[in-house]
C-alpha cells in the first residue's frame, strides 16, 4: 500500500481583478514507503505548488485546492490548520530551496532545531537541545554545541541547508519533501547535500519527494520520475526507463538541453524554444504543442489524456517519440 496517495490534485489561484490561474491541474501519483519520487519540470510547471499543497502551506485566501492527498490512510486536505500543525514536522517534513531566507535570522539555530523536537516528541527543552546537537552532528555540522547558539548569518550556505535538513528530519517523518534543495548552493556543495539526503533517507526509511528542474539530481536520486508541464503530469516512468527511452517530446527536450560528458565534441546543446509563460492552457489542445517539434494538427485541437502505455509508465502525448518507428516495425 502506498504511503502517500495524491489523487486528482488541483490548485487554482483566484484573484479578484485578474483571471484565475490554474497552477496544478489534476495531478495524481503515489509514493511508497522508503522510495524516492521525483517531480521534474521548469519553473512555473506547478511542482512547488504541488508540494506546498501536500504540506498544507498554501495561502488560505484566494487559493482553491481540490482532489485528495492521503497520507497513511488519513486525508490531509480535510485537516484544519490546527490538526495539520500536529502532523507537519512529525509525519511529513520539508526542506526548502533557499537556506538563507528559510532560516529565521534572529533565532539561534539550536532553538530552530529543538523547537520541532519539543513540539512533537514531548521532550523537555534541555533534552530537546541535546537531541538537536546530536542531529546537527549527524547532518555533518562540526562542533554542534557551539553552532547551537549561533545564528544563520554565521553559517555558510551548505551549513544552513544541513541545519534545515536536520529540522525537517528531527522527528523522523515518514515523508520528506525536498523542494530544489540544492539550487541555491555552490556546485561543490550540491553533491555533498544530495549524498547526505540519500544517506539519511536510507537510514530512517523516510520516503522522499524530490522536486527539481535538474535532471542530474533526478538521475542520482529518484526511483520513479514524474515530468510536469503547465500543471499536469506529462510523463511518468522508472528512472532508467525514462533516461534510456524518453517518450514525451518535452522530456526529451529537457534531456537534450543538459550538457553531457559523453556527447560528441562540437555538438550543440538543444534548448527548448520559448518558455512556460507563453503557453496556452490545456483547454485549447496540448499546452506544450507551441514549443513541440513533434506537434501534429490534432495537438492544437484536443488535449491528450494521460494513458498507461506499459507497466508503470504513463504518457500524455498524441505523437510521442518513437511512435513512428514503432508503426514502421508493425508494418
Amino acid at each position, binding site marked *: 500500500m502506498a504511503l502517500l496517495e495524491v489523487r486528482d490534485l488541483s490548485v487554482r489561484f483566484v484573484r479578484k481583478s485578474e483571471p484565475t490561474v490554474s497552477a496544478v491541474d489534476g495531478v495524481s501519483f503515489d509514493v511508497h514507503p522508503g522510495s524516492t519520487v521525483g517531480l521534474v519540470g521548469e519553473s512555473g510547471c506547478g511542482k512547488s505548488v504541488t508540494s506546498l499543497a501536500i*504540506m498544507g*502551506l498554501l495561502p488560505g485566501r484566494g487559493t482553491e485546492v481540490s482532489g485528495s492527498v492521503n497520507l497513511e490512510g488519513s486525508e490531509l486536505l480535510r485537516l484544519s*490548520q*490546527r490538526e*495539520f*500543525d*500536529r*502532523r*507537519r*514536522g*512529525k509525519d511529513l*517534513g*520539508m526542506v*526548502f530551496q*533557499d537556506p538563507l*531566507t*528559510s*532560516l*529565521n*535570522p*534572529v*533565532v*539561534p539555530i539550536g*532553538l530552530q532545531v529543538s*523547537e*520541532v523536537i519539543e*513540539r*512533537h516528541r514531548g521532550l523537555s527543552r534541555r533534552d530537546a537541545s541535546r537531541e538537536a546537537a546530536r542531529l546537527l552532528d549527524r547532518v555533518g555540522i562540526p562542533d554542534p554545541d557551539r553552532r547551537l547558539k549561533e*545564528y544563520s*548569518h*554565521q553559517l555558510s550556505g551548505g551549513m544552513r541547508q544541513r541545519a*534545515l535538513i536536520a*529540522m*525537517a528530519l528531527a522527528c523522523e517523518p515518514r515523508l520528506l519533501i525536498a523542494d530544489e534543495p540544492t539550487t541555491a548552493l555552490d556546485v561543490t556543495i550540491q553533491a555533498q547535500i544530495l549524498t547526505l539526503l540519500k544517506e539519511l533517507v536510507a537510514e530512517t526509511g523516510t520516503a522522499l519527494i524530490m522536486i527539481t528542474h535538474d535532471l542530474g539530481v533526478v538521475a542520482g536520486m529518484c526511483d520513479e520520475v514524474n515530468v510536469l508541464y503547465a500543471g499536469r503530469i506529462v510523463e511518468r516512468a522508472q528512472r532508467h526507463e525514462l533516461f534510456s527511452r524518453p517518450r514525451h517530446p518535452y522530456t526529451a527536450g529537457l534531456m537534450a538541453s543538459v550538457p553531457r560528458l559523453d556527447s560528441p565534441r562540437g555538438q550543440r546543446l538543444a534548448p527548448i524554444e520559448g518558455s512556460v509563460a507563453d503557453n496556452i492552457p490545456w483547454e485549447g489542445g496540448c499546452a506544450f504543442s507551441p514549443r513541440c517539434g513533434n506537434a501534429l494538427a490534432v495537438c492544437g485541437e484536443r488535449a491528450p489524456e494521460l494513458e498507461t502505455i506499459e507497466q508503470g509508465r504513463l504518457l500524455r502525448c498524441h505523437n510521442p517519440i518513437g511512435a513512428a518507428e514503432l508503426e514502421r516495425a508493425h508494418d
Partner: protein
Amino acid sequence: MLRYTVRRLGQLLIVTVVLSVLLFGWLRALPGGPVSALLGERATEESRARLVQQLGLDQPLYVQYWKFVQRAITGDFGVSTGVQPGTPAMEVFLQRMPATLELSVLALLLAVAVGIPLGYFAARRQGGWLDNLSITWSLIGVAVPVFFLAFLLKYVFAIEFGVLPASGRQAAGIDATHATGFFVLDGLLTTEWDAAWNALVHLLLPAVALSTIPFAVIFRLTRASVLDVVEEDYVRTARSKGLGAMVVRGRHILRNAMLPVVTTIGLQTGALLSGAVLTEQVFNIPGIGQALSLGFQRQDYAVLQVVILATAMVYVLVNLLVDLAYAAIDPRLRTR
C-alpha cells in the same frame, strides 16, 4: 558590540558639540543680543555690565564660546526672567521635567500597547474591517492638530460629562508627599494609593491626546512590518515544522517584525516632546512644554535655551539607548 557602543557614543559627542555651537549662535542672534535676551529689557546697567563680564562679551568669539561651554557643563544657564523670575533656569527645568516625563511615558505606553497589537491583527486580516478602521483612524489621527484634539477630549470628557479632571496634575484637596516629582510614582512609593490614582486620572486625557501621533506611526509600521515578515520563507519553514500558532506568531513573526518598530519608538520621542508642549498648555500641566510656551511669550531665553538643549539631548540619548537595544535584539548587528 563594544565597538558599536563606542562609535555611537562618539557620534553622541559630535552631535552635542554641534548643538552647543548652534545654541551659542542662536543666543547671540536673538533680538537685542545675549544681554537683553538673558536679563530682560528692564535690567539695570550694573547687572548688564556684570553679565557682559561674565559672558566675556568683550572678548573674542572663541573665548565667549568656551565660557558658554564651561557654564553649560556646570549647569549654569542664567536666571529665569519670565517663567519663574529669579529662579535659576536649570532649576526651573528640573522642577518641571518630571511632569513632562510622566505624561510622555504614559502616552508612549498607550501608543505601544494599542499600536502594536492592533498593527499585528490588522495585518493578519488585511483588508478586513479592523484593518480599514484602524488605517482610517491613524490617517485622521495625524491630520488633527494635537492641541485641538486635546481641547476636544477636555470638552467632551471633562466639561460635558465631567468624568475626568480638566486640568492640573492632582486634585488640590489631596494631601500627597512629593518625593520624586513624578506624582504617580510618588503615590506608589509612599503607598498613598488615592494620590497615585488621582494623579493617574489627571494624566489620562492629556496622555490620550499626546499618544495619537506615536500611535498612528507605530500602528502603521507594525502593520507594514508584519505584512512583510509573514511573506518570508522562514515563516513558511516554521509552519512546515508544525509549530503551534503561538510559537509561529511570537518567535518567528513578531520577533522579526518588531525590529523596525523598536527604532521608531525611539524616534517618537521627538514627536512626544513637541506634542507635550501643546498638550500641557491645554491641560495646564506645569511641565517643560508649558515652560517653553511661557518662556516664548515672556521672552525668557535663559529657560528656552535649557529646554532646547535638554530636550535635544534627551532625544539623542533615548535614540542611542534604542539603537543599543536594537543591537541586543538583532544578532546580525551584535555579532558583527
